């Protein structure tokens, strides 16, 4: 790492009305290194990256590339300087082929002024092969999986001669083996001398692949260290002032015998079959599986959002015929969808409206809503579960991910739901808010509620769930009890992964 630095950001500051997003932050990237950037939501990571990529302009400080002070005021300028980024929202033209996406805006033409498809696909193949990505450049992007699309974005960035590639939460959409492919790719990039900035909330990844790590907190630089000289607990303390162990250690109440929900041989052709399990009162039942294994489909059927072919649902000892969300809601079931923005919230409506969304029929008389009750409910939950918002009239889209999730929870809490189904409850939620959400789980179970939690994130399942069932390709492959993974060791992780891949666990 004694090679010369590619880009150095010095004393970068940026303010928005009312908040200082960055305060004299230093950040540098050397060729061939993976420099991780961590911090809570709002710590300034995205702001720093946006300034580097030309999406925002800094208020003060300098950006130095190859020893020369430069100004980056537009994203296309950033590209010219060899800076590329892979964001969570895949920036590809979905209806075009992979090859065409490589050449977006600059399609090569033949002497006859027609598109030179040969050159497009030849070059695209070369770039993909170079990185060991096994994707046919003629394939249409929307037919690729999320993981494959991400690979294409990475290849495209390199095709544009990027010397620094920024990854923003790259594994959020990836399954475990796809993550391994990504890491192999990153290793390849390192070998080519590309400098990598890696932003992630998943600390174990930081320790797997990064060389250095920078921690930001409230817009200030806390420290930049060699990854080998620190550990997860220290990082978390730097980020939030609390240690890792605390985050997942929630109180687990003694399991009761009372069964609140029983699923018997639930099946849906080509999606899942013979799913059977029981949910006890006060229990947190984890549902683990690889992305696409069918867990979301299962719970959507339990909630009445989709139809299933055969099987029975029993709620509190009685057979329940659930054909629509309203049926499930009337039985006391609430669903927090995987994509809370698309399915859980009305983003441009207020916090108050979203919290009361399922409650309105109950606070309506002769077609008119009781405004006072509406307000009271919203304020009560805002306080109870600490939803950070200047007022309940604020539009939900202005809240952070963690607080948006709390609004969805409040929606079901206000209905006195007894069975909560959380589908990836902490996706896109920062460390601080995650801990709050787990504490909420604890409170919910203490109050006699029961939870089914779908998660693809093993530390979360092992830390929070009392029991976990594993789904693989629509089939239930096994159940693990808390005692079997309480140590949260690598062997324990392997048990889960084996079951999720359909293998037998001894």
């Amino acid at each position, binding site marked *: 790492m004694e090679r010369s630095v590619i880009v150095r950001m010095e004393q970068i500051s940026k303010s928005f009305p009312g908040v200082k997003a960055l305060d004299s932050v230093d950040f540098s990237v050397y060729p061939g290194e993976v420099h991780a950037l961590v911090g809570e939501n709002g710590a300034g990571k995205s702001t720093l990256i946006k300034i580097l990529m030309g999406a925002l302009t800094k208020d003060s400080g300098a950006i130095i590339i190859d020893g020369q002070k430069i100004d980056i005021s537009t994203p296309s300028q950033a590209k010219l300087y060899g800076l590329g980024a892979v964001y969570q929202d895949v920036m590809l033209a979905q209806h075009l082929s992979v090859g065409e996406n490589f050449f977006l805006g600059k399609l090569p033409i033949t002497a006859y002024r027609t598109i030179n498809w040969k050159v497009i696909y030849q070059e695209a193949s070369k770039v993909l092969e170079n990185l060991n990505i096994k994707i046919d450049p003629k394939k249409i992007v929307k037919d690729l999986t999320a993981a494959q699309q991400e690979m294409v974005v990475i290849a495209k960035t390199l095709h544009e001669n990027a010397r620094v590639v920024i990854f923003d939460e790259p594994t959020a959409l990836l399954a475990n083996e796809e993550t391994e492919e990504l890491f192999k790719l990153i290793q390849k990039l390192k070998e080519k001398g590309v400098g990598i900035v890696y932003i992630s909330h998943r600390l174990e990844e930081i320790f797997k692949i990064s060389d250095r790590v920078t921690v930001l907190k409230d817009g200030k630089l806390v420290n930049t260290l060699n990854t080998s000289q620190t550990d997860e607990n220290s990082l978390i303390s730097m980020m939030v002032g609390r240690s890792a162990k605390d985050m997942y250690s929630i109180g687990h109440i003694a399991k009761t015998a009372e069964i609140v929900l029983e699923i018997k041989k639930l099946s849906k052709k080509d999606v899942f079959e013979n799913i059977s399990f029981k949910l006890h009162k006060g229990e947190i039942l984890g549902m683990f599986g690889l992305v696409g294994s069918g867990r979301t489909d299962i719970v959507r059927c339990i909630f009445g959002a989709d139809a299933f072919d055969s099987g029975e649902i029993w709620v509190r000892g009685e057979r329940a015929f659930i054909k629509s969300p309203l049926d499930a809601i009337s039985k006391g079931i609430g669903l927090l969808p995987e994509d809370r923005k698309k399915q859980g919230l009305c*983003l441009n409506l207020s916090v108050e*409206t979203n919290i009361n969304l399922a409650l309105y029929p109950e606070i309506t008389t002769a077609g008119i*809503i009781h405004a006072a009750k509406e307000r009271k409910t919203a304020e009560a939950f805002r306080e109870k579960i600490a939803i950070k918002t200047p007022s309940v009239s604020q539009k939900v889209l202005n809240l952070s991910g963690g607080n948006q999730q709390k609004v969805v929870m409040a929606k079901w809490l206000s209905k006195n739901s007894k069975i909560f189904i959380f589908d990836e409850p902490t996706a896109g939620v920062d460390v601080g808010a995650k801990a709050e959400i787990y504490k909420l789980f604890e409170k919910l179970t203490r109050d006699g509620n029961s939870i089914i939690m779908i998660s693809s994130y093993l530390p979360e399942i092992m830390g929070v769930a009392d029991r976990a069932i594993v789904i693989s390709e629509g089939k239930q492959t096994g159940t693990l009890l808390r005692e079997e993974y309480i140590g949260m060791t690598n062997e324990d992780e392997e048990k889960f992964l084996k079951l999720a891949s359909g293998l037998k666990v001894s």
Partner: protein
Amino acid sequence: MGIQIVKHGLLSKIIKYCKNTKIFATEGTLLTILIFLATFLSIASQFFLTFENITNLVRHTSIVGVVAIGMTFVIISGGIDLSVGSVLGFSGMTAAILMRDGNNIYIAIIAGILSGTVIGVINGVIIHKGKVPPFIATMGSMIVVRGVIMLISGARMVSGLPREFTNFSQHGFLGVPNLFIVWLSIMFLANFLAKRSLFGRNIHAIGSNVEASRLSGIKIQNNIIKVYAFCAFMASVAGIMMTSRLASGVPTGGDGFELDAIAAAVIGGASLSGAEGTVLGTVLGAFIMAMLRNGGTLMGINPFLLQIAIGSIVVAAVLIDKQKKSKR
């Protein structure tokens, strides 16, 4: 003196409230524009501020305004209704034919409104159950219903309507035209409906995110059918108002009103992507549109130039509104 102080105190309180709650930002801007426009026109043309002109203007705006209010609800729900012009004509023509043939005025009015509302129910069913996009479904109704009107009227005006019926639109209460009073009453009811009723809340939720609404237990089917029925109901009422004003059932009655209604709603702040828009905004938008037309004609502007200007203004109004919203 005492009254002066009270008025001043109240006024400044109102202004402070409006400034603090950004809720009235769009409407405030529109009101300002309206006042400027009115002032400008009174200076530019000696005929503008006459009793005759103003009452004429108000009567016409009231009819379009009622349609626009119904349209606002549909736009808030994330849809659009192109059939309102035809529904207006259909309701008006049905009532006219019944009255001409000697039926009781009130029965005729109710029959007219009912027949128009049924179109709305059909629209709602086709859109929700048939999953036909609102634009296409209502465009179809627009064409079909206009055809029905031509059929039942033989493509001819239907006159000979009872004096009491046609007088209604000519008269007023304390100088305020009856048609405006009808619109005013509808304004208050609709505003209350939009802001305080379960139906209103459901419509906003559906317009904001229909999947999230469904997963929260809102009955999408019922609400979609209701909102299109409501819109058609408004258009039908407007149809009766127009028939009274024109003293006859006109086969082309309401033609083009769908565009004016959409323009009024959109200038008033409604967004075609749903969940935005208010009754007050639409009302102001309707007035602005009407004043532009009226003023342009009075000032002798070439009607085609006027058309170009009005179209441009509608787009400009939305552009400015979008700019303001993205700054927040």
